[in-house]
């Protein structure tokens, strides 16, 4: 055997193509090497701004996804007589599939468009799916955000005008202290890993606040184990300690936030709790007029904010000339913090008092004493020139450990305010935005306000998802009842800005608020890992009414693989994989922007579609054309776009707007960006440029963007935003106060139904506060003393990767990790079979002892457990016998006040409370089966599934391999 360079060389690959990975939502650039048409090697693209050449475990296993036997290859129809869940299908042609869909959807559109619901899971094309739904005319559209991390988006965007992940992130190049809270793997997987390691190497201190120490937390310099759901208490106590010790950035708070603005304290006024406004000449098209007041400490009277020479008080209680009692917003915050002492927080979080104090001191002192000064001149929104950009090098990052609790919105507000108090918003070493953020608070897009926005044969008036700024922005009927099937934007969950997919099936089956006809699911495994109350939901999908009709009459699933949800479909649309299709990571959606400017990217097919697989994009374009949805046909009703690539190039948000899905190489010859006429060669230009468009802002536009004249003008000029006013941080949230006033019956806006008044009034607090997660409030904590949470394994993506022959060898099954002390007191040992039981149900699993977990917490990897036979796995595969799904013990609903049922969600945003469940654990009896329970009937393979399950595999690209069929 010859290992000489020459011999090795001859086995190299023959063809290389760039595209974008989709083994997860991170969207790294990849180079795919092919040999004789087969994928030989997938590596990170070194010229890609996001991942700079690195790849992750999933990305490097793309081959095993591409050639997975779980691939669907033909459109399928549930056999007459077969029940949902039986996985008993007959193959049909695409022609038939389209005819079925066209007929059904046309009828719905002509009668009642909201009876069609389109919900998408880990979708990266929400711009298109959203457009389709809107043009169809249904309000019942959302993606996974509601059960994913909407608290993180809403909590921060309603506070600082941006958030983590695609919206912004920690500037670890310059930070000296990095605090990561409740993050296991995150969406920004590779960039975050790159950044953390650089940060650590540069000698910064990395603190991880997490009940569990794995993954990133493993390499933290300090691990702060916290009890789940209690971060709000910690963050508030930290803020208190900072303020107490005067470790806040006064200058920043005064100029760039609403902290010094005066709040009306006149309880009898309808304006109570609102900022006092004064008359100023109104500017045109202004979302947030600069008409609020400061208390000038020199002149001892109120002045217009940002008046020349004024130096406002941050604290204090004053009386205006007209006699109105006022307090500064910061004064209200400090009063709020009064009771949130470190001692108080220690009792709740389990973190010792001294440690809380020390953490605050480290943050405060680092922020104050290690100031960064960059020689970058910039001009602020009030016209003041600054000769440098400064920063306080304390950076935070947080994800679902904060978000996935029913108190997460306020916790995340607390975090945003802590970051603000330290003065770290869009400054070097702190948090930095990514285009198109920052946006006005809240952003301008609004959901429709009235049921009449939904009309037969019409596009939806308004956007299915948006950002309510006041009670009048809610999408409710005249009784205050919900219009959407998921009850998003109703008084139950007013700021559910990403929708509430986790409510859809339950609501639709119950007919609450109404029944729907067709539910289309794209890329969401709602019969398994993305649903709470999994067993119940599976039963509901099969539930029939008195007439023997399914309560959800028609379910369409677009998937690329034989998932658990496919089994419940009436019609299955086999999608392509990411290596087989065109795709855009659009600026209209969530682009992959960097701190230094907007970036968007595309996928280019590198291999032909397998079997009859068809990109879902093409399915939508075809359907939209057949249904003659306005944007997809010309004036004569003729189809406008041949296919998806052409659609991407030619579509403009309105004729001549110059805004389309892609920001790069616009204009006839590709000379423009952001806005410009369609460019027929846009795809080729992306392809030539590593499939990305990256615009680097001038340096003076890269910081302080909320208040940066240059940037704001630039953003407006390039149509990123409508307004160019400064975006002051909402330390005090008037938006929330308006909802509270409505609930208290004090304002003239829409009012909540009576049964929700107390709830809205309580949770819509303009200042962050701590409350126990809803589930804990209705749990007997003596009986269920433990918190149960999940984490993402770095080498698996939700349910997708169990079909992946390489990845599943790393995690073929999962365990429940418990502290050894806990196990011993409960009489079981490492490796034993145990039950984990909540008040909603129980699951049998194996346990592992771990010292790296807060003793009141148990945890497991997310979505490893599978239903037998799904994903082309053998019925006795580890995933379905030894692995388990925690979702069975998580309820989608909780008892509310009276006999009300409420969603197990944050009362402000509708974020699913995944990590609130309380459990107990005990040994499984000797005579009980040594396998997980509940366990379902094994699924059979479906027609056209990509092939036999080989007994062994010896993958060698471009060469015949052997493997005995099993």
């Amino acid at each position: 055997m010859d290992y000489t360079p020459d011999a090795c060389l001859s086995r190299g690959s023959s063809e290389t193509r760039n595209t974008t990975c989709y083994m997860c939502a991170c969207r790294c650039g990849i180079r795919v090497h092919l040999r004789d048409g087969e994928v030989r090697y997938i590596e990170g693209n070194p010229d890609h701004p996001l991942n700079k050449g690195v790849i992750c475990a999933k990305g490097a296993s793309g081959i095993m996804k591409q050639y997975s036997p779980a691939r669907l290859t033909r459109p399928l129809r549930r056999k007459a007589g077969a029940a949902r869940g039986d996985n008993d299908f007959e193959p049909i042609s695409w022609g038939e599939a389209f005819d079925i869909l066209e007929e059904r959807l046309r009828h719905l559109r002509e009668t009642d468009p909201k009876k069609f619901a389109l919900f998408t899971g880990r979708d990266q094309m929400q711009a298109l799916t959203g457009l389709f739904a809107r043009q169809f005319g249904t309000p019942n559209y959302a993606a996974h955000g509601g059960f994913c991390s909407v608290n993180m988006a809403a909590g921060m965007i309603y506070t600082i005008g941006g958030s983590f992940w695609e919206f912004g992130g920690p500037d670890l190049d310059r930070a000296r202290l990095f605090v990561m809270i409740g993050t296991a793997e995150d969406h920004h997987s590779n960039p975050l890993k790159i950044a953390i390691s650089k940060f650590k190497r540069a000698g910064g201190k990395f603190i991880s606040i997490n009940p569990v120490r794995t993954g990133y937390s493993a390499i933290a310099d300090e691990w702060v184990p916290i009890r789940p759901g209690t971060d709000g208490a910690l963050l508030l106590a930290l803020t208190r300690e900072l303020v107490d010790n005067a470790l806040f950035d006064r200058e920043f708070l005064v100029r760039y936030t609403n902290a010094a603005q005066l709040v009306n304290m006149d309880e009898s006024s309808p304006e109570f709790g609102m900022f006092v406004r004064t008359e100023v000449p109104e500017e045109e098209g202004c979302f947030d007029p600069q008409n609020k007041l400061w208390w000038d400490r020199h002149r001892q009277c109120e002045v217009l904010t940002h008046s020349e020479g004024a130096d406002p008080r941050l604290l204090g209680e004053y009386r205006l000339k007209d006699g109105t009692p006022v307090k500064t917003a910061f004064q209200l915050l400090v009063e709020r913090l009064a009771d949130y002492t470190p001692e108080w927080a220690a009792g709740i979080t389990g973190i010792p008092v001294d440690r809380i104090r020390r953490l605050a001191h480290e943050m405060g002192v680092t922020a104050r004493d290690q100031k960064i000064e960059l020689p970058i001149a910039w001009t602020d929104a009030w016209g003041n020139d600054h000769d440098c950009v400064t920063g306080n090098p304390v950076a935070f990052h947080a994800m679902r450990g904060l978000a996935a609790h029913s108190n997460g919105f306020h916790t995340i507000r607390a975090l945003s305010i802590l970051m603000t108090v330290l003065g770290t918003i869009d400054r070097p070493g702190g948090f930095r935005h990514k285009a198109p953020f920052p946006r006005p608070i809240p952003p301008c897009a609004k959901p429709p306000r009235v049921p009449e926005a939904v009309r037969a044969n019409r596009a939806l008036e308004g956007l299915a998802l948006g950002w309510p700024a006041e009670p009048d922005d809610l999408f409710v009927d005249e009784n205050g009842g919900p219009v959407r099937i998921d009850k998003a934007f109703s008084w139950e969950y007013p700021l559910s800005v990403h929708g509430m997919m986790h409510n859809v099936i339950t609501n639709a089956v119950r007919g609450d608020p109404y029944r729907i006809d067709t539910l289309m699911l794209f890329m969401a495994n709602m019969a398994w890992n993305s649903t709470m109350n999994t067993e119940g939901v599976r039963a509901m999908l099969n539930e029939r009414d008195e007439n023997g009709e399914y309560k959800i009459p028609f379910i369409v699933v677009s998937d690329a693989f034989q998932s658990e949800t496919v089994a419940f479909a009436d019609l299955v649309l086999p999608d392509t994989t990411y290596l087989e299709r065109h795709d855009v990571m659009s600026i209209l959606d969530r682009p992959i922007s960097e701190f230094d400017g907007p970036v968007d990217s595309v996928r280019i097919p590198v291999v032909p579609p397998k079997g009859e697989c068809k990109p879902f994009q093409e399915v939508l374009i075809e359907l939209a054309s057949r249904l003659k949805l306005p944007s997809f046909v010309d004036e004569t009703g003729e189809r406008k776009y041949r296919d998806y690539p052409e659609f991407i190039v030619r579509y403009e948000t309105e004729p001549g707007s110059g805004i389309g899905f892609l920001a790069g190489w616009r204009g006839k010859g590709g000379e423009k960006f952001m806005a410009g006429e369609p460019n027929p060669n846009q795809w080729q230009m992306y392809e030539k440029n590593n499939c990305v468009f990256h615009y680097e802002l001038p340096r003076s536009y890269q910081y302080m963007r909320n208040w940066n004249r240059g940037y704001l003008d630039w953003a407006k000029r390039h149509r990123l935003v409508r307004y160019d006013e400064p975006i002051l941080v909402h330390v005090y949230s008037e938006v929330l106060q308006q909802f509270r006033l409505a609930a208290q019956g004090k304002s003239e806006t829409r009012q909540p139904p009576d049964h929700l008044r107390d709830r809205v009034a309580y949770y819509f607090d303009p200042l962050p506060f701590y409350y126990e997660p809803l589930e804990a409030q209705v749990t007997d904590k003596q009986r269920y003393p433990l918190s149960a949470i999940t984490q993402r394994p770095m080498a698996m993506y939700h349910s997708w990767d169990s079909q992946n022959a390489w990845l599943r060898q790393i995690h073929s099954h999962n365990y429940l990790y418990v502290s050894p002390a806990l196990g011993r007191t409960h009489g079981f040992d490492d490796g034993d079979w145990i039950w984990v039981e909540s008040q909603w149900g129980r699951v049998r699993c194996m346990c592992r002892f771990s010292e790296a977990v807060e003793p009141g917490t148990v945890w497991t990897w997310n979505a490893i457990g599978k239903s037998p036979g799904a994903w082309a796995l053998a019925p006795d595969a580890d995933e379905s016998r030894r692995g388990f799904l925690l979702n069975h013990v998580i309820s989608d609903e909780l008892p509310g006040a009276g006999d009300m049922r409420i969603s197990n969600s944050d009362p402000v945003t509708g974020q699913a409370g995944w990590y609130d469940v309380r459990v107990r654990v005990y040994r499984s009896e000797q005579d009980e089966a040594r396998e997980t329970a509940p366990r379902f009937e094994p699924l059979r393979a479906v027609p056209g599934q990509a092939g036999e399950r080989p007994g062994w595999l010896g993958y060698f690209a471009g060469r015949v391999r052997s493997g005995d069929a099993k």
Partner: protein
Amino acid sequence: MHPAFSVIFLTILIGAGQGLFLALYLSELLASSGGLNMPDGRLYVAGGVLSVALLAAGLAASFFHLGHPERAWRTATCWRTSWLSREVIALPAAMACTAAWTIAHAVGWDLSILGIDSMRPLDLSLVIGAAGIVVTFALFLCTGMIYACIKFVAEWATPLTVLNFTLLGSASGFTLATALSSWLEGEAMTTILGAWAMALTFTGALTRFASLLRNDRLKPRSSLQSAIGIRHSKIVQRAQGATAGSFNTREFFHHAAPRIYRSMRLVFMVLTFVAPLALLIPGVMLSSTALFAAACVLQLAGLVAERWYFFAQANHPQNLYYQYVS
């Protein structure tokens, strides 16, 4: 380590074959030195054939251990460094010597066929046998050293390993020879062989027991601390990186229930040593072929258990890296 039956049978079969040859040659020596009546050829021919057959069976068993038996010839190439390679040379050599010795007996050759003036009958077999003895001991050495030279496996890395392979192989061979002799030969020879068999079994018991004692007291040289280079008194593995195991968990672990593992030790001590002795003693007194045959069978069975335990007890430092599925 995982006890592979191919290797268990290889070592047991060739050990018995070697021991049998030693016994036969010893009896020939004794006889030719006048201490005993020279047996008629039947014992030597039958014994020789059996010995060669055992060696061949061992060799055959070893092929089951190879992924590519068709390339087995390559194994002879690295005798300078590899005990395995040396064994591969010594084993056929031992077979050749034993076979030649047997043929010499069968055909009644003497040195005259080499043109040397024959002084006494069977002198050729004595000469071939002498070479056979050297090769046989060399083979014991090679087989033992294959294990003893793996310094990482402390249970093996001791001269006792070579000694045990030699003594246990010899003991089983002598027991076999005793049974053969009792069947084909007279009492005198049987008694002597039986005495040797008892002595070897007894000594083997002592040395094997010594190795057990030694192994029980071994302190592993490597620890999790040195394996991952972190100094801390409490380190545990949390995940070995593959939930369903790998070559490393198949090859280096016995996977037997602790109960079975523990009882195997008693089983082999009884079967290999106690039972054969308990049968050989009355066997010699009663001249009972049946008892000898029974001793023989039990001892060989015991050796299967002994070899199994020999592997199972061996704790490889690589195991530090592969302990925990999660």
